[in-house]
Protein backbone atom coordinates (compact mmCIF):
# COMPACT_ATOMS: atom_id res chain seq x y z
CA UNK A 1 0.00 0.00 0.00
CA UNK A 2 1.54 3.27 -1.14
CA UNK A 3 1.54 6.01 1.47
CA UNK A 4 1.75 8.89 -1.01
CA UNK A 5 4.95 10.41 0.41
CA UNK A 6 6.52 12.96 -1.89
CA UNK A 7 10.02 11.61 -1.19
CA UNK A 8 10.45 8.29 -3.00
CA UNK A 9 13.28 7.38 -0.64
CA UNK A 10 10.92 7.76 2.32
CA UNK A 11 8.21 5.85 0.50
CA UNK A 12 10.74 3.06 0.02
CA UNK A 13 12.09 3.24 3.58
CA UNK A 14 8.69 3.03 5.20
CA UNK A 15 7.04 0.69 2.75
CA UNK A 16 4.38 -1.57 4.22
CA UNK A 17 6.12 -4.64 5.53
CA UNK A 18 3.08 -6.54 6.76
CA UNK A 19 2.49 -9.93 5.23
CA UNK A 20 -0.85 -9.59 3.46
CA UNK A 21 -2.02 -13.15 3.23
CA UNK A 22 -4.93 -12.45 0.91
CA UNK A 23 -3.38 -10.12 -1.61
CA UNK A 24 0.25 -11.09 -1.69
CA UNK A 25 -0.03 -14.81 -2.26
CA UNK A 26 -0.71 -17.04 -5.22
CA UNK A 27 -2.62 -20.19 -4.20
CA UNK A 28 -1.69 -21.83 -7.53
CA UNK A 29 2.01 -21.62 -6.65
CA UNK A 30 1.99 -24.57 -4.22
CA UNK A 31 -0.08 -26.66 -6.64
CA UNK A 32 2.38 -26.05 -9.48
CA UNK A 33 5.28 -26.88 -7.18
CA UNK A 34 3.68 -30.11 -6.04
CA UNK A 35 2.89 -31.11 -9.61
CA UNK A 36 6.40 -30.44 -10.88
CA UNK A 37 8.23 -31.56 -7.75
CA UNK A 38 6.04 -34.61 -7.12
CA UNK A 39 6.18 -34.03 -3.39
CA UNK A 40 3.57 -32.94 -0.82
CA UNK A 41 5.20 -29.63 0.04
CA UNK A 42 2.12 -28.25 1.80
CA UNK A 43 2.70 -30.70 4.67
CA UNK A 44 5.83 -28.84 5.82
CA UNK A 45 5.73 -28.05 9.54
CA UNK A 46 8.86 -25.93 9.58
CA UNK A 47 11.06 -28.05 11.83
CA UNK A 48 14.24 -26.87 10.13
CA UNK A 49 15.71 -30.34 9.54
CA UNK A 50 16.26 -29.30 5.92
CA UNK A 51 18.29 -26.20 6.69
CA UNK A 52 20.14 -28.11 9.39
CA UNK A 53 21.16 -30.68 6.78
CA UNK A 54 22.04 -28.17 4.09
CA UNK A 55 25.70 -27.72 3.05
CA UNK A 56 24.94 -24.29 1.59
CA UNK A 57 23.17 -22.87 4.65
CA UNK A 58 26.19 -22.35 6.93
CA UNK A 59 28.02 -20.31 4.29
CA UNK A 60 25.22 -18.17 2.89
CA UNK A 61 21.81 -16.66 3.52
CA UNK A 62 20.17 -19.61 1.76
CA UNK A 63 17.51 -21.19 4.02
CA UNK A 64 15.66 -23.99 2.34
CA UNK A 65 13.06 -23.95 5.15
CA UNK A 66 12.20 -20.39 4.13
CA UNK A 67 11.58 -21.52 0.57
CA UNK A 68 9.32 -24.25 1.93
CA UNK A 69 7.42 -21.59 3.84
CA UNK A 70 7.10 -19.44 0.75
CA UNK A 71 5.79 -22.46 -1.13
CA UNK A 72 3.18 -23.19 1.54
CA UNK A 73 2.03 -19.58 1.71
CA UNK A 74 2.16 -18.96 -2.04
CA UNK A 75 4.80 -16.23 -1.90
CA UNK A 76 5.72 -16.81 -5.52
CA UNK A 77 7.49 -13.61 -6.35
CA UNK A 78 9.54 -13.60 -3.19
CA UNK A 79 10.66 -17.16 -3.85
CA UNK A 80 11.45 -16.90 -7.55
CA UNK A 81 13.36 -13.62 -7.36
CA UNK A 82 15.53 -14.63 -4.41
CA UNK A 83 19.00 -15.43 -5.85
CA UNK A 84 19.52 -17.94 -3.00
CA UNK A 85 17.24 -20.22 -5.01
CA UNK A 86 20.30 -21.16 -7.07
CA UNK A 87 22.51 -22.14 -4.12
CA UNK A 88 21.02 -25.63 -3.68
CA UNK A 89 23.64 -28.25 -4.58
CA UNK A 90 20.83 -30.85 -4.89
CA UNK A 91 22.53 -33.10 -2.34
CA UNK A 92 19.12 -34.36 -1.15
CA UNK A 93 20.20 -34.63 2.51
CA UNK A 94 17.08 -32.67 3.42
CA UNK A 95 14.92 -35.09 1.47
CA UNK A 96 16.37 -38.10 3.26
CA UNK A 97 15.87 -36.58 6.70
CA UNK A 98 12.59 -34.69 6.38
CA UNK A 99 10.26 -36.15 9.03
CA UNK A 100 7.25 -35.23 6.94
CA UNK A 101 8.67 -37.23 4.04
CA UNK A 102 8.81 -34.21 1.76
CA UNK A 103 11.65 -33.71 -0.74
CA UNK A 104 12.57 -30.03 -0.26
CA UNK A 105 15.21 -30.36 -2.99
CA UNK A 106 12.49 -31.19 -5.47
CA UNK A 107 10.56 -28.14 -4.28
CA UNK A 108 13.62 -26.06 -5.12
CA UNK A 109 13.89 -27.72 -8.52
CA UNK A 110 10.21 -27.00 -9.20
CA UNK A 111 10.70 -23.37 -8.19
CA UNK A 112 13.68 -23.13 -10.54
CA UNK A 113 11.51 -24.48 -13.35
CA UNK A 114 8.92 -21.81 -12.58
CA UNK A 115 11.62 -19.13 -12.37
CA UNK A 116 12.94 -20.18 -15.78
CA UNK A 117 9.47 -19.56 -17.20
CA UNK A 118 9.86 -16.00 -15.92
CA UNK A 119 13.29 -15.75 -17.58
CA UNK A 120 14.95 -15.85 -14.17
CA UNK A 121 17.93 -18.17 -14.61
CA UNK A 122 21.69 -17.88 -14.10
CA UNK A 123 23.76 -17.74 -17.27
CA UNK A 124 25.69 -20.96 -16.66
CA UNK A 125 22.49 -23.00 -17.02
CA UNK A 126 21.78 -21.40 -20.40
CA UNK A 127 25.30 -22.02 -21.64
CA UNK A 128 24.94 -25.69 -20.80
CA UNK A 129 21.76 -25.77 -22.90
CA UNK A 130 23.61 -24.21 -25.83
CA UNK A 131 26.50 -26.69 -25.55
CA UNK A 132 24.21 -29.69 -25.43
CA UNK A 133 22.24 -28.36 -28.38
CA UNK A 134 25.42 -28.04 -30.39
CA UNK A 135 27.32 -31.18 -29.34
CA UNK A 136 25.01 -33.37 -27.28
CA UNK A 137 27.29 -32.82 -24.31
CA UNK A 138 27.39 -30.33 -21.46
CA UNK A 139 31.15 -30.83 -21.23
CA UNK A 140 32.33 -31.48 -24.82
CA UNK A 141 35.55 -32.97 -26.09
CA UNK A 142 38.62 -30.87 -26.93
CA UNK A 143 41.92 -31.38 -28.76
CA UNK A 144 44.06 -31.99 -25.69
CA UNK A 145 41.63 -34.65 -24.57
CA UNK A 146 41.54 -36.21 -28.06
CA UNK A 147 45.28 -36.57 -27.96
CA UNK A 148 45.14 -38.12 -24.50
CA UNK A 149 42.45 -40.54 -25.57
CA UNK A 150 44.56 -41.75 -28.49
CA UNK A 151 47.49 -42.35 -26.16
CA UNK A 152 45.26 -44.51 -24.00
CA UNK A 153 44.27 -46.63 -26.97
CA UNK A 154 40.80 -45.13 -27.06
CA UNK A 155 39.37 -43.53 -30.15
CA UNK A 156 39.73 -39.75 -30.28
CA UNK A 157 35.96 -39.37 -30.11
CA UNK A 158 34.00 -41.37 -27.51
CA UNK A 159 31.12 -43.63 -28.55
CA UNK A 160 28.63 -40.83 -27.95
CA UNK A 161 27.20 -38.11 -30.14
CA UNK A 162 30.81 -37.10 -30.59
CA UNK A 163 31.54 -40.19 -32.67
CA UNK A 164 28.00 -40.43 -34.03
CA UNK A 165 26.93 -36.82 -34.78
CA UNK A 166 23.98 -38.20 -36.74
CA UNK A 167 22.20 -38.44 -33.39
CA UNK A 168 22.48 -34.71 -32.73
CA UNK A 169 19.45 -33.63 -34.81
CA UNK A 170 17.26 -35.92 -32.69
CA UNK A 171 18.51 -34.25 -29.55
CA UNK A 172 17.90 -30.85 -31.10
CA UNK A 173 14.34 -31.88 -31.89
CA UNK A 174 13.72 -32.72 -28.27
CA UNK A 175 15.17 -29.40 -27.14
CA UNK A 176 13.26 -27.50 -29.81
CA UNK A 177 10.06 -29.20 -28.70
CA UNK A 178 10.40 -27.20 -25.50
CA UNK A 179 11.97 -24.11 -27.16
CA UNK A 180 15.01 -24.56 -24.97
CA UNK A 181 17.64 -23.28 -27.40
CA UNK A 182 15.54 -20.36 -28.51
CA UNK A 183 14.85 -19.29 -24.93
CA UNK A 184 18.48 -19.70 -23.91
CA UNK A 185 19.71 -17.67 -26.88
CA UNK A 186 17.17 -14.95 -26.25
CA UNK A 187 17.87 -14.55 -22.52
CA UNK A 188 21.62 -14.63 -23.05
CA UNK A 189 21.50 -12.03 -25.82
CA UNK A 190 19.24 -9.78 -23.75
CA UNK A 191 21.76 -10.03 -20.95
CA UNK A 192 24.54 -8.91 -23.23
CA UNK A 193 22.78 -5.73 -24.32
Amino acid sequence: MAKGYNDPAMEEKFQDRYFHATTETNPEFIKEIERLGRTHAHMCFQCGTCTGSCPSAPRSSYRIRKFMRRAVLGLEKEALTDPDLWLCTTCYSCADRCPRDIAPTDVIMAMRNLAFKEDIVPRNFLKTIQLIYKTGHGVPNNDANRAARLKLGLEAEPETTHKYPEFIPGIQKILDHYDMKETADRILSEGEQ
Partner: protein
Amino acid sequence: MHEYAFFLGCIAPNRYPGCEAAAIRTSRNVGIELLPLKGASCCPAPGAFGAVDLRVWYAMAARNICLAEEMGKDITLICNGCYKSIYEVNERLKEDDELRDEANEVLAEIDMEFKGSVDVYHLAELYYDPKVCGVEKIRESVVRPLDGTKIAVHYGCHLLKPLKERRFTNSENPMWIEELVDALGAEAVQYRNKMQCCGAGGGVRGFDLAHSLDITNEKMINIAEAGADALTEVCPFCQLQFDRGQVEIKDKFGIEWGLPVLHYNELLGLAQGMSPQELALDLHAIDCKPFLDKIL
Protein backbone atom coordinates in the same frame (compact mmCIF):
# COMPACT_ATOMS: atom_id res chain seq x y z
CA MET B 1 30.57 -62.56 -18.61
CA HIS B 2 27.88 -60.04 -17.61
CA GLU B 3 27.25 -57.59 -20.44
CA TYR B 4 26.04 -54.04 -19.97
CA ALA B 5 25.53 -51.01 -22.16
CA PHE B 6 28.15 -48.55 -20.95
CA PHE B 7 26.78 -45.04 -20.58
CA LEU B 8 29.76 -42.66 -20.67
CA GLY B 9 28.30 -39.27 -19.82
CA CYS B 10 30.39 -36.13 -20.48
CA ILE B 11 33.14 -35.64 -17.94
CA ALA B 12 34.67 -39.10 -17.95
CA PRO B 13 35.29 -39.38 -21.72
CA ASN B 14 35.97 -35.69 -22.27
CA ARG B 15 38.02 -34.70 -19.21
CA TYR B 16 39.20 -37.87 -17.46
CA PRO B 17 39.49 -40.43 -20.26
CA GLY B 18 41.53 -42.57 -17.88
CA CYS B 19 38.29 -43.28 -16.01
CA GLU B 20 36.73 -44.60 -19.20
CA ALA B 21 39.77 -46.67 -20.15
CA ALA B 22 40.07 -48.03 -16.61
CA ALA B 23 36.39 -48.92 -16.35
CA ILE B 24 36.51 -50.98 -19.55
CA ARG B 25 39.65 -52.90 -18.56
CA THR B 26 39.08 -53.34 -14.84
CA SER B 27 35.53 -54.54 -15.22
CA ARG B 28 36.56 -57.08 -17.86
CA ASN B 29 39.00 -58.50 -15.29
CA VAL B 30 36.10 -59.23 -12.95
CA GLY B 31 33.71 -60.65 -15.50
CA ILE B 32 31.83 -57.56 -16.65
CA GLU B 33 31.87 -56.59 -20.32
CA LEU B 34 31.05 -52.97 -21.11
CA LEU B 35 29.52 -52.50 -24.56
CA PRO B 36 29.52 -49.08 -26.22
CA LEU B 37 26.18 -47.26 -26.08
CA LYS B 38 26.40 -45.60 -29.45
CA GLY B 39 25.04 -42.10 -29.86
CA ALA B 40 24.42 -41.41 -26.17
CA SER B 41 24.41 -37.78 -25.10
CA CYS B 42 24.69 -35.88 -21.87
CA CYS B 43 22.53 -37.72 -19.30
CA PRO B 44 21.40 -34.70 -19.09
CA ALA B 45 22.98 -33.11 -16.05
CA PRO B 46 20.31 -33.32 -13.33
CA GLY B 47 21.16 -30.03 -11.67
CA ALA B 48 21.60 -28.02 -14.83
CA PHE B 49 18.71 -29.45 -16.85
CA GLY B 50 16.34 -30.48 -14.08
CA ALA B 51 16.55 -26.93 -12.84
CA VAL B 52 15.35 -25.28 -16.04
CA ASP B 53 12.75 -27.74 -17.23
CA LEU B 54 12.14 -31.16 -15.74
CA ARG B 55 10.22 -32.24 -18.86
CA VAL B 56 13.38 -31.91 -20.94
CA TRP B 57 15.30 -33.80 -18.29
CA TYR B 58 12.86 -36.72 -18.57
CA ALA B 59 12.82 -36.72 -22.37
CA MET B 60 16.57 -36.47 -22.87
CA ALA B 61 17.33 -39.16 -20.30
CA ALA B 62 14.63 -41.34 -21.81
CA ARG B 63 16.32 -41.04 -25.21
CA ASN B 64 19.55 -42.40 -23.76
CA ILE B 65 17.67 -45.26 -22.11
CA CYS B 66 15.93 -46.05 -25.41
CA LEU B 67 19.34 -46.59 -27.02
CA ALA B 68 20.05 -49.32 -24.48
CA GLU B 69 16.56 -50.76 -24.90
CA GLU B 70 17.32 -51.13 -28.61
CA MET B 71 20.49 -53.04 -27.65
CA GLY B 72 18.51 -55.11 -25.18
CA LYS B 73 21.09 -54.50 -22.45
CA ASP B 74 20.88 -53.08 -18.95
CA ILE B 75 22.83 -49.87 -18.49
CA THR B 76 25.85 -49.34 -16.29
CA LEU B 77 27.68 -46.09 -15.72
CA ILE B 78 30.46 -44.58 -13.65
CA CYS B 79 29.11 -41.13 -12.73
CA ASN B 80 26.67 -40.22 -9.94
CA GLY B 81 25.14 -37.37 -11.90
CA CYS B 82 24.43 -39.73 -14.80
CA TYR B 83 23.13 -42.24 -12.26
CA LYS B 84 20.60 -39.77 -10.91
CA SER B 85 19.34 -38.86 -14.38
CA ILE B 86 19.34 -42.27 -16.02
CA TYR B 87 18.36 -44.38 -13.00
CA GLU B 88 15.74 -42.04 -11.63
CA VAL B 89 14.13 -41.21 -14.94
CA ASN B 90 14.04 -44.91 -15.82
CA GLU B 91 12.33 -45.81 -12.55
CA ARG B 92 9.91 -42.88 -12.65
CA LEU B 93 8.85 -43.46 -16.23
CA LYS B 94 8.32 -47.13 -15.48
CA GLU B 95 6.01 -46.27 -12.59
CA ASP B 96 4.21 -43.20 -13.80
CA ASP B 97 2.08 -43.54 -16.92
CA GLU B 98 1.56 -39.81 -17.22
CA LEU B 99 5.28 -39.04 -17.21
CA ARG B 100 5.98 -41.86 -19.62
CA ASP B 101 3.29 -40.76 -22.05
CA GLU B 102 4.59 -37.21 -21.99
CA ALA B 103 8.14 -38.34 -22.68
CA ASN B 104 7.01 -40.73 -25.40
CA GLU B 105 5.07 -37.97 -27.10
CA VAL B 106 8.34 -36.13 -27.62
CA LEU B 107 10.33 -39.25 -28.42
CA ALA B 108 7.82 -40.14 -31.12
CA GLU B 109 9.07 -37.11 -33.05
CA ILE B 110 12.41 -38.91 -33.41
CA ASP B 111 10.89 -42.37 -33.85
CA MET B 112 11.79 -43.63 -30.42
CA GLU B 113 9.72 -45.06 -27.60
CA PHE B 114 10.51 -45.62 -23.95
CA LYS B 115 9.40 -49.14 -23.09
CA GLY B 116 10.83 -49.61 -19.61
CA SER B 117 12.61 -52.82 -20.57
CA VAL B 118 16.04 -52.25 -19.04
CA ASP B 119 17.52 -51.53 -15.60
CA VAL B 120 20.24 -49.09 -14.65
CA TYR B 121 23.20 -49.77 -12.35
CA HIS B 122 26.20 -47.83 -11.17
CA LEU B 123 29.32 -49.85 -11.96
CA ALA B 124 30.38 -49.52 -8.31
CA GLU B 125 27.20 -51.22 -7.16
CA LEU B 126 27.83 -54.04 -9.63
CA TYR B 127 31.34 -54.42 -8.21
CA TYR B 128 29.83 -54.80 -4.76
CA ASP B 129 26.97 -57.07 -5.79
CA PRO B 130 28.06 -60.69 -5.22
CA LYS B 131 25.59 -61.85 -7.88
CA VAL B 132 27.56 -59.91 -10.51
CA CYS B 133 31.05 -59.46 -9.08
CA GLY B 134 31.38 -58.99 -5.32
CA VAL B 135 34.20 -57.85 -3.04
CA GLU B 136 35.93 -61.22 -3.17
CA LYS B 137 36.28 -61.13 -6.94
CA ILE B 138 37.66 -57.61 -6.72
CA ARG B 139 40.19 -58.80 -4.13
CA GLU B 140 41.18 -61.72 -6.33
CA SER B 141 41.76 -59.43 -9.31
CA VAL B 142 44.41 -57.43 -7.44
CA VAL B 143 48.00 -58.00 -8.61
CA ARG B 144 49.54 -54.90 -7.04
CA PRO B 145 48.00 -54.36 -3.62
CA LEU B 146 47.80 -50.74 -2.50
CA ASP B 147 49.41 -51.72 0.79
CA GLY B 148 50.23 -49.00 3.25
CA THR B 149 48.04 -46.33 1.73
CA LYS B 150 45.24 -44.52 3.49
CA ILE B 151 42.32 -43.63 1.29
CA ALA B 152 39.34 -41.47 2.08
CA VAL B 153 36.06 -42.31 0.35
CA HIS B 154 33.61 -39.80 -1.03
CA TYR B 155 30.33 -41.48 -2.01
CA GLY B 156 28.75 -38.48 -3.70
CA CYS B 157 25.17 -37.43 -3.15
CA HIS B 158 23.34 -38.67 -6.20
CA LEU B 159 24.52 -42.23 -5.81
CA LEU B 160 22.58 -42.71 -2.56
CA LYS B 161 20.12 -39.86 -2.22
CA PRO B 162 17.18 -39.51 -2.21
CA LEU B 163 17.41 -42.90 -0.53
CA LYS B 164 13.72 -43.63 -1.06
CA GLU B 165 14.34 -43.69 -4.81
CA ARG B 166 17.38 -45.94 -4.59
CA ARG B 167 18.13 -49.61 -4.05
CA PHE B 168 20.49 -48.74 -1.19
CA THR B 169 19.52 -48.82 2.46
CA ASN B 170 21.84 -46.32 4.09
CA SER B 171 22.78 -42.80 3.10
CA GLU B 172 24.05 -41.67 6.52
CA ASN B 173 27.02 -43.93 7.19
CA PRO B 174 27.44 -46.46 4.38
CA MET B 175 30.61 -48.57 4.39
CA TRP B 176 30.40 -50.64 1.22
CA ILE B 177 32.80 -48.57 -0.92
CA GLU B 178 35.23 -48.77 1.99
CA GLU B 179 34.96 -52.54 1.67
CA LEU B 180 35.79 -52.23 -2.03
CA VAL B 181 38.78 -50.02 -1.17
CA ASP B 182 40.00 -52.37 1.57
CA ALA B 183 39.82 -55.19 -0.97
CA LEU B 184 42.59 -53.43 -2.91
CA GLY B 185 44.92 -53.68 0.08
CA ALA B 186 44.52 -50.02 1.01
CA GLU B 187 43.13 -48.75 4.29
CA ALA B 188 39.89 -46.82 3.93
CA VAL B 189 39.96 -44.06 6.52
CA GLN B 190 36.95 -42.42 8.14
CA TYR B 191 36.73 -38.65 8.34
CA ARG B 192 34.33 -36.07 9.70
CA ASN B 193 31.12 -35.44 7.83
CA LYS B 194 31.95 -38.07 5.22
CA MET B 195 28.57 -37.80 3.55
CA GLN B 196 28.78 -34.07 2.92
CA CYS B 197 28.32 -32.91 -0.67
CA CYS B 198 31.38 -31.99 -2.78
CA GLY B 199 29.73 -28.65 -3.51
CA ALA B 200 29.58 -28.88 -7.28
CA GLY B 201 26.01 -30.05 -7.90
CA GLY B 202 22.79 -28.25 -8.71
CA GLY B 203 24.55 -25.81 -11.01
CA VAL B 204 26.23 -24.17 -8.01
CA ARG B 205 29.71 -24.69 -9.45
CA GLY B 206 28.72 -22.61 -12.44
CA PHE B 207 26.54 -20.15 -10.52
CA ASP B 208 28.85 -19.32 -7.61
CA LEU B 209 32.22 -21.05 -7.90
CA ALA B 210 33.57 -19.62 -4.63
CA HIS B 211 30.54 -20.89 -2.75
CA SER B 212 30.91 -24.37 -4.17
CA LEU B 213 34.66 -24.37 -3.48
CA ASP B 214 34.07 -23.32 0.13
CA ILE B 215 32.05 -26.52 0.56
CA THR B 216 34.83 -28.51 -1.12
CA ASN B 217 37.41 -26.88 1.10
CA GLU B 218 35.51 -27.93 4.23
CA LYS B 219 35.71 -31.49 2.97
CA MET B 220 39.44 -31.10 2.31
CA ILE B 221 39.98 -29.93 5.90
CA ASN B 222 38.18 -32.99 7.25
CA ILE B 223 39.96 -35.40 4.91
CA ALA B 224 43.36 -33.93 5.75
CA GLU B 225 42.58 -34.35 9.43
CA ALA B 226 42.16 -38.08 8.86
CA GLY B 227 45.62 -38.27 7.24
CA ALA B 228 44.51 -39.68 3.90
CA ASP B 229 47.02 -40.21 1.09
CA ALA B 230 44.33 -39.95 -1.55
CA LEU B 231 40.65 -39.45 -2.04
CA THR B 232 38.56 -41.82 -4.07
CA GLU B 233 35.07 -41.35 -5.45
CA VAL B 234 32.79 -42.89 -8.05
CA CYS B 235 31.75 -39.71 -9.86
CA PRO B 236 33.85 -37.78 -12.38
CA PHE B 237 31.99 -34.57 -11.53
CA CYS B 238 32.92 -34.91 -7.85
CA GLN B 239 36.41 -35.80 -9.09
CA LEU B 240 36.55 -32.62 -11.14
CA GLN B 241 35.40 -30.60 -8.16
CA PHE B 242 38.01 -32.11 -5.85
CA ASP B 243 40.83 -32.28 -8.39
CA ARG B 244 40.57 -29.04 -10.33
CA GLY B 245 38.81 -27.51 -7.33
CA GLN B 246 42.04 -27.75 -5.34
CA VAL B 247 43.74 -25.57 -7.95
CA GLU B 248 40.86 -23.13 -7.81
CA ILE B 249 40.92 -23.18 -4.00
CA LYS B 250 44.58 -22.25 -4.16
CA ASP B 251 43.77 -19.43 -6.58
CA LYS B 252 40.83 -18.06 -4.65
CA PHE B 253 41.61 -18.81 -1.03
CA GLY B 254 45.38 -19.31 -1.06
CA ILE B 255 45.23 -22.76 0.46
CA GLU B 256 47.15 -25.68 -1.02
CA TRP B 257 46.11 -29.24 -0.24
CA GLY B 258 47.88 -31.38 -2.84
CA LEU B 259 45.62 -34.38 -2.25
CA PRO B 260 45.51 -36.85 -5.17
CA VAL B 261 41.95 -37.62 -6.27
CA LEU B 262 41.27 -40.91 -8.07
CA HIS B 263 38.11 -42.46 -9.39
CA TYR B 264 37.59 -45.91 -7.90
CA ASN B 265 38.11 -47.38 -11.35
CA GLU B 266 41.50 -45.69 -11.59
CA LEU B 267 42.38 -47.06 -8.17
CA LEU B 268 41.22 -50.51 -9.21
CA GLY B 269 43.25 -50.17 -12.43
CA LEU B 270 46.40 -49.44 -10.41
CA ALA B 271 45.73 -52.41 -8.16
CA GLN B 272 45.16 -54.62 -11.19
CA GLY B 273 48.56 -53.55 -12.50
CA MET B 274 47.71 -50.80 -14.97
CA SER B 275 50.39 -48.12 -15.28
CA PRO B 276 49.70 -44.45 -14.43
CA GLN B 277 50.14 -43.74 -18.16
CA GLU B 278 47.44 -46.24 -19.08
CA LEU B 279 45.16 -44.33 -16.72
CA ALA B 280 46.16 -40.88 -17.97
CA LEU B 281 46.77 -39.80 -14.42
CA ASP B 282 48.91 -37.00 -15.87
CA LEU B 283 45.66 -35.30 -16.90
CA HIS B 284 44.76 -34.84 -13.25
CA ALA B 285 45.22 -31.30 -11.99
CA ILE B 286 46.68 -32.58 -8.72
CA ASP B 287 49.84 -34.60 -9.10
CA CYS B 288 49.23 -38.23 -8.12
CA LYS B 289 52.95 -38.91 -7.71
CA PRO B 290 53.09 -38.80 -3.87
CA PHE B 291 50.42 -41.47 -3.81
CA LEU B 292 51.96 -43.48 -6.66
CA ASP B 293 55.32 -43.44 -4.92
CA LYS B 294 53.80 -45.38 -2.06
CA ILE B 295 52.58 -48.22 -4.24
CA LEU B 296 54.84 -48.47 -7.27
